[in-house]
Each structure stands twice: as structure tokens, then as C-alpha cells.
């Protein structure tokens, strides 16, 4: 089967956005909260 040459240009990805910080910080806050719950209520 013949091979089609791939897309030579690298894909155009989006830039980093403030939304991503929000997701990361929310997740971090949740993990801290869950750790607190785990170790407080046992």
C-alpha cells in the first residue's frame, strides 16, 4: 500500500489561556480539600 506523505507542517495549537490556570488551581484546591477530608475524618 502506498504511503501518503504526512502533514509536514506542525499542527497549529492554541496558546496558553487563563482558563487553564483556573482549571489547574481548581483541581489543586480540590485535591487539598480531599486530602483534608481524608485525614481529618478517619
Amino acid at each position: 500500500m502506498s504511503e501518503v506523505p504526512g502533514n509536514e507542517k506542525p499542527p497549529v495549537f492554541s496558546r496558553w489561556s487563563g482558563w487553564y490556570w483556573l482549571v489547574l488551581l481548581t483541581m489543586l484546591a480540590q485535591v487539598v480539600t480531599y486530602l483534608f477530608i481524608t485525614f481529618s475524618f478517619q
Partner: protein
Amino acid sequence: MNAIDWIVLFGTLALIVSYGVWKTRGASNMQGYLLGNKSLPWWTVCLSIMATQASAITFLSTPGQAYEDGMRFLQFYFGLPLAMIILSITAVPLYHKLKVFTAYEYLETRFDRKTRTLAAFYFLMLRGLSVGITIYAPALILSTILGWDIHLTTLLIGSLVMIYTVTGGTKAVSITQKYQLAIIMGGMITAASIAFSKLPDGVTFGNTFQLAGEMGKMNLINLSFNLSDRYNIWSGLIGGLFLFLSYFGADQSQVGRYLGGSSITESRLGLIFNGLLKVPMQFIILYIGILIFVFYQFHQAPLIHNQALQRQAMSTSAATDLTKLESSYSVVFQERKEIAGKLVTAIQQGDNPAIENTKAALAEVQKNEAGLRTQAKQAIKKALPKANTQDKDYVFINFVMTYLPHGLIGLLLAVVFSAAMSSTASELNALASTSAVDIYKRSIRPAENDGHYVKASKWLTAGWAVFAMIFASLANQAENLIQFVNIVGSLFYGTILGIFLSAFYIKYLRSTAVFWAAIVGEAVILYLYFFTDVAFLLYNIVGCVVVVGVAFILQTIENKSSR
């Protein structure tokens, strides 16, 4: 169930189905039918993504999981927000820019037809198998609860979904999911409120955490690293990240949801908000299981949560044993209720020695209770050898049927049906898109007009729906339904992810190397599944690493031999 419940149940289902059909009538081209004309705002995309992932199994099985095993299942979702960010940066702009109908279409522009077809084939295998389970799981539980034949509940769920998915395509799937998710969350929160309101006076919200915590249920995070442990923070973050990258980046049932977004920004925001909301939503669903657990410290839980099975067993030789066990169980419950009350008082007074004493006493009583339940299950198994005595999936629905007022029972059953319909609809739509675009249009009838492909897509949607209903009717019971679905997903996701990661990020790799690496990767995963006890979440990493690693080796050999 009384007349009000039936009216609420069928009224809700009929409204959703009719609205979906009416609102999306007349889609006549592929862009309209498979991508909803790319017209959806971010919040519809987000709700559609969430409703697709949250199947009926999620709502039936997850509270039961928390009831028996605590909250640790939550860690499974920790990799999801990270996956949302990565996909928002990479996959979303790429798919939008290339104007693809399916994720696999992109693979032909990057590699070639055979790699696209292989990835589409893997997807059809995994989704084709799991769509049957998506219908079967709630159909089984509803048939048990309602006393209906399982074929009837299967047919009801399958045909209701088929009506609006066939007529309205992607747009019908997305707009009905908004309302289905609203009903689902409303119903779950109502059930939780009722469980809480029925706790003894003076037991606060905080006390439910403390009581459950003292009894080992608030095990939200496990920091130990263990490859064969299904749920710890590392398997959740690493294995979960890979699983969700595959699921949201390369599974058409999710890619199809955000491809319907009206712009890159709308699609991306849909994923971002899913990343923000998914873990808290799972926390709430698990916490409902904890509330039911606390509730049953003060109200007698059934000996077997699958009450229909217990009733059936009462007409067999197990009846005498079960009657004796039931009366011992009542005695043990009275003892437990008293100790649980003392524990709450000790917690409220901050009396640590009393907490430790009552905790030890409660653990002893719980052990006796678990022993009685095991004996009851053994007695049932002896009398009815084919019966499945695993009753975790019945904890929540049995609570609903026993303790919720009429009207709300109908609403909660509508929740289960809605959840089953919303995820099944996305899966059928994705199976139809992939078979129509990546197989039928690409390899069987490439030169037809748009109307022909719309008609073919409709027939394929109906065909997959019929297949799913037949599969659901023939399916055997898995030990725990939600885990079975996750295992089926993990069997293929790692390999598919390996193909997509190679396509997105590794320019060095070409089609033939990736194609053969994907076949080797799948063989390795199947070996792990059948011959080892490696935790299934790790299959995603292993599959992905093997595909990329083998592709590198093959590409290097190919490059050297062509010099």
C-alpha cells in the same frame, strides 16, 4: 409505583423525545446531521459532554460503590481536568481547522487510509461492545425493580433513543442531553436531600462526614503507589490522564460533541467547564452513597439490596435460612443503631475515648452484619445457582423505591432512563458517524451525493441501535457493571491514544510504522488482560507507550533500509 409515578416517568420521557424530534426535524446534509451545522454554544457542548460520559451505570452503580467501598473511586477522575487542558490546546484547534467529521478522518491527512481505517475499526470494536452494556446495565436493574421482562426494558430504552437519534442526528443528541442532565442532577439532589432529611434529629451535615469517616468511608485519597491497586491518586492522575486523553481526544462519541461547537472557543470552553465540573459532580454522586450509608445506620437496610432476588429466593429451599438470617439481622441492626447513636453523640461532644470505644464496637457489629449478608448470599446461591448475588448496583435504586414519596420515584426512574438514553444516543451517533464517514463513504461508496450519505447515516444509526439492543438482551452479567465498561474502554483506548499522540506530536513517525505498532500494541494489551493482573487503568499507558515505542523502532529500521 403508583399512577403519579407512571405519569411523571412517561411524561418526562415523552417530552424529551418529542422535543428532540421536533426541534431537529429536516437535517438534510452531512454537516447538519453529523455536526449539527457547527452551531452549538459552549454550555450546550459542556452539558452534552457531561451527559455522554455520565451513563445510567454512573448513577446506579456509583452510590453503591461509595456505600460499600467508600469514596476512593473519586481518584479515578483526577486526570480528567489535565486531559481537558491538553485537548483544548491540541485536538480542538486541529479538528476545527481540518473541518473533519470524525477524529479518524484526521489520521488520513496525517498518515494514510489504512491507519485511519484501523483506528476507526478499534473504535467500532470498543464502542460497539460498550453501547450494548450502556443499555443492558440499566435495563437489567430496571427490569428487576419494575418486575418487567429485561427484553422490554431494553427495547424501551433502545427504541426511545433510536427515534430522535435517527431523525435528528447530532443536534438532537446534544439538545436532548441538556434537559436530560437537568433532570438527572435535579433528581439526584432531591434523593440526597430526602436521605439527609430522614436522619435522626441533631445529626448535621458535618456529622455525616465524621460518622462515615470513623467507619472508613471517607477514603478520598490514597497516596500509596501500587500497580495492582485500582484506585489511588497516582493511577487516577497518570492512568486517568491517559484514559481521558483517549476518551475525549480519540473517541468519536466525545469528539462528536465538541465538533458541534460553533467555534474553536465554544468547543474549548465546553471542555474546560467539563474539567471544572466533572470531579465535583462525581463527588456529589459518591456522597449520595455515603448519605445512604449513614441513613442505614439508623434505618434497617435490606438483607439483600436486590429485593426482587430475595423475594424469589423466599419461594425456594433457602426460605428457612433466609428467615432465620433476617431475624438475626434485625437484632444486629438494633444493636448497631444504638451504637451509631452513641458514636454521633461522642462525635458531637468531641469525646475521643468514647469515639474510639464506640468505633470498635461498631466495627464488631458491622462484621457480624457483613457475615449475615454473606450467609444470605450463599443460601441464595445454593438455591438459585445462576443468580447474581452482587447487590451493590441495587443500593441506590432500592433506597429510592423504598423511601422516596410517590411522584419522586417516577422522577428518579426518569433520571435512570434519561442517563441511559443520553449516553446511548451519543454512542449510536458516533458509531453511525464513524461507520458512515470512515468506512462506508471512504471505502465502499465514495462517489455518492450528500443526501445519500445522510440516508446511509440514518440507516447505520438504526442498525447500531438494533445491534445494541440485541447485544444487551444477550449480555451476561459482569461482576460490577461500571468496572466492566471501564475495562472494555481500557482494552482499546491506549492503542488508539498511541496512534493519535504519534500523529499530533511526533513528526518523525510515518504511517506504516504506526500502523504495525498499533497492531503490536493491541496484542500486548490483550496479553495483559488475559494473562496478568495489571490494573486496567494502566492498560492505557502501556498501550500508548508500546505503540509509540514500537513505531519508533520500526520507523528507524524503515529509514535505514531505505537509505
